[in-house]
């Protein structure tokens, strides 16, 4: 089956509730790996044995997205929610969300501007006062529609955008999952490769830590959707990445100092294959590479990302050519590692 990036991006899976994403990813890699299995936290592993014993390569992309959870229902039937992962309060007001397995719609409403005092209008909304209105009039009525712990996601659909761009909800990190699926479904890898679709990355790299402990790789590659701020009001040196300039290669982030030898190899492979690439020009934010590099007695780790404008907001934007470039780059990188071209 072909990768349907729209389907992958639209599946709802907040950290801790990735089961539907896992099911689709399993379908994508079925028949393309020697072993496919899961574990108790919900990671999905696709193992390709290769033809030699090492180096063992783990490639991680996370299935979970940031979102919310139902934490209570009040007597007026309003749903109280809690953040799962990093969402800034400014994103919340006046949005439509979907709750639970039946995707019950709700709105995060705010006081009409007509009713606000002048000084209220300039202050940010206090997230503690925001609730979701599902149209219920009482606690009992609401609890017929939603339950405690139900996941809540933005109501946004994936689709084409502008010139060769995509817009969608959970591009961080469904684009990474898409790259991983394509890498597992193609390529000629002599070294053993574990493609791991991880869970709960957004709340502390939880799935990747467990997967890395199980696998104990020598090399870890994280595939991410990353910060991209090529927008008005941001100086060039603060943009981090730019849409359309190719996959972004990291040198350091909040959890890893990417191994210099691995970084050099990525650049060499990109140049040899004629794949445009850019640096991820920032050091903040951690990802599954940190979990892989610190497992057991340690691993060399790196990260390759697809730039996504507006990550951790309801709708993000990325470039299809960056995505395709990332697939080519990672595939060529793992093939190169399998040929023994990584020199420490």
């Amino acid at each position, binding site marked *: 089956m072909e990768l349907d990036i729209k389907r992958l991006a639209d599946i709802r899976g907040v950290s*801790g509730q990735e089961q539907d994403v896992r099911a689709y990813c399993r379908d994508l890699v079925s028949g393309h790996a020697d072993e496919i299995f899961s574990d108790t936290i919900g990671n999905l592993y696709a193992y390709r044995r290769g033809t030699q014993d090492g180096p063992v390569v783990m490639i991680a992309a996370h299935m979970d997205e940031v979102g919310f959870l139902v*934490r209570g229902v009040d007597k007026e039937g309003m749903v109280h929610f*809690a953040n799962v992962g990093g969402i800034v309060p400014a994103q919340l007001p006046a949005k439509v969300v979907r709750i639970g397995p039946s995707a019950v719609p709700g709105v995060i409403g705010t006081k009409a501007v007509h009713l606000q005092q002048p000084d209220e209008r300039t202050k940010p909304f206090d997230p503690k006062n925001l609730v979701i209105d599902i149209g219920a009039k009482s606690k009992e009525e609401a609890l017929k529609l939603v339950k405690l712990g139900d996941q809540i996601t933005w109501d946004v659909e994936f689709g084409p955008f502008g010139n060769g761009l995509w817009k969608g909800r959970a591009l961080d990190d469904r684009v990474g999952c898409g790259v991983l699926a394509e890498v597992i479904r193609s390529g000629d890898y002599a070294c053993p490769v574990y493609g791991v679709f991880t869970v709960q990355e957004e709340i502390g790299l939880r799935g990747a830590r467990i997967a890395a402990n*199980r696998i104990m790789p020598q090399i870890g590659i994280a595939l991410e959707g990353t910060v991209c701020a090529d927008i008005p009001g941001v100086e060039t040196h603060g943009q981090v990445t730019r849409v359309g300039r190719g996959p972004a290669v990291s040198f350091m982030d909040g959890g890893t100092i990417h191994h210099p030898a691995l970084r050099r190899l990525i650049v060499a492979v990109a140049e040899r294959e004629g794949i445009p690439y850019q640096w991820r020009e920032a050091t903040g934010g951690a990802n599954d590479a940190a979990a892989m590099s610190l497992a057991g007695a340690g691993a060399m780790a790196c990260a390759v990302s697809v730039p996504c404008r507006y990550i951790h907001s309801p709708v993000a934007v990325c470039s299809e050519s960056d995505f395709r470039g990332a697939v080519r780059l990672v595939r060529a990188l793992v093939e190169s590692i399998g040929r023994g071209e990584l020199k420490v």
Partner: protein
Amino acid sequence: MQTKEFLRRLTEGVGVSGHEHHLSSVVLEALGPYAHRVEVDALGNCIAVRQGEARGEGGGEAAGERVKIMLAGHVDEIGLMITKIDEHGFLRIAQVGGFDPRTLVGQEVTVHGRRALPGIIGIKPPHIMSEDERRKAAKLEELFVDIGMDAAAAGEVVSVGDIITLSRRFIELHGDVVAAKAMDDRAGVAVLLECLRRLSQMRHEADVYAVATVQEETSFGGAITGAWAIQPDIGIAIDVGHAGPGLPGPDAMELGKGPAIAMGANIHPRIHELLTRTARECGVAYQDDVEPAATGTDAWPMQISRAGVATGLISIPLRYMHTSVETGNMRDITEAGRLLAEFCARVDRAFVEGLRWS
């Protein structure tokens, strides 16, 4: 030992994070009679193990195949440590674990030097404070402990690195309500006793490791190393949860309504399901606790130990957490112990195999 007496001895005892060895003998004395073996590990976790019944005939299951449940209640308390004895004999202090410094002002403390000494946490009297100072909350660096000695005398009995605890007796309030320091999380350790005592009268397949963990308040160190050594299939943390008054939202837990059973990313859904189903089947009243991400308990490190542990969390409702008057209800503790015992008795290999996702 009765549970309330155990709780009293624990909460009146001294066991600041990293210094829990003072409580080992009380813990082992209480849990020992209901365990097949006890041990104290490298970091000081006290572990009481109940072996389960071997499955099937012949009972020749290899050790590695046994189903293991780890129950974790942390025995360490937050406290203070002497950083410096100043030239007048006053002691400067640092936190061990998270205190609200505002609650420390004017407290009576015990300084554990060569002997236990009474002390008072002092601050500038309001009469000589500026307007500004009076309005601002006290910072830990401005606080000091007065033990009523000059520097030379102080140097004979205390030294840098000595720990300090709040002086507070276990208080029985009305009904089943009690107040003490360190109910976080000695209430959880008391639950371990309730659980083991009942389990010793029940049949269970799983090996149950009841662990009074150390250093939860500073680094989760006891749960990290303990889970690594035990390699459990299931890890249940028993901690305390914030109970009102004064909490926002429709979801705060209440004293006397039973233990809170957590759900969320830190909790395996099937563990939550078995805990809640067991509670309903056994008539244990319980409350829901939605935890979106990190729970801030031993369940957090246990979940990612090695290749993963299926985790659960039970919380005893507690008012005024991290103060010297943490207040809870004994019935919540005994009911939590009953729930856990029934849960452990229901865990078998088939259940554990069902924890792995497809």
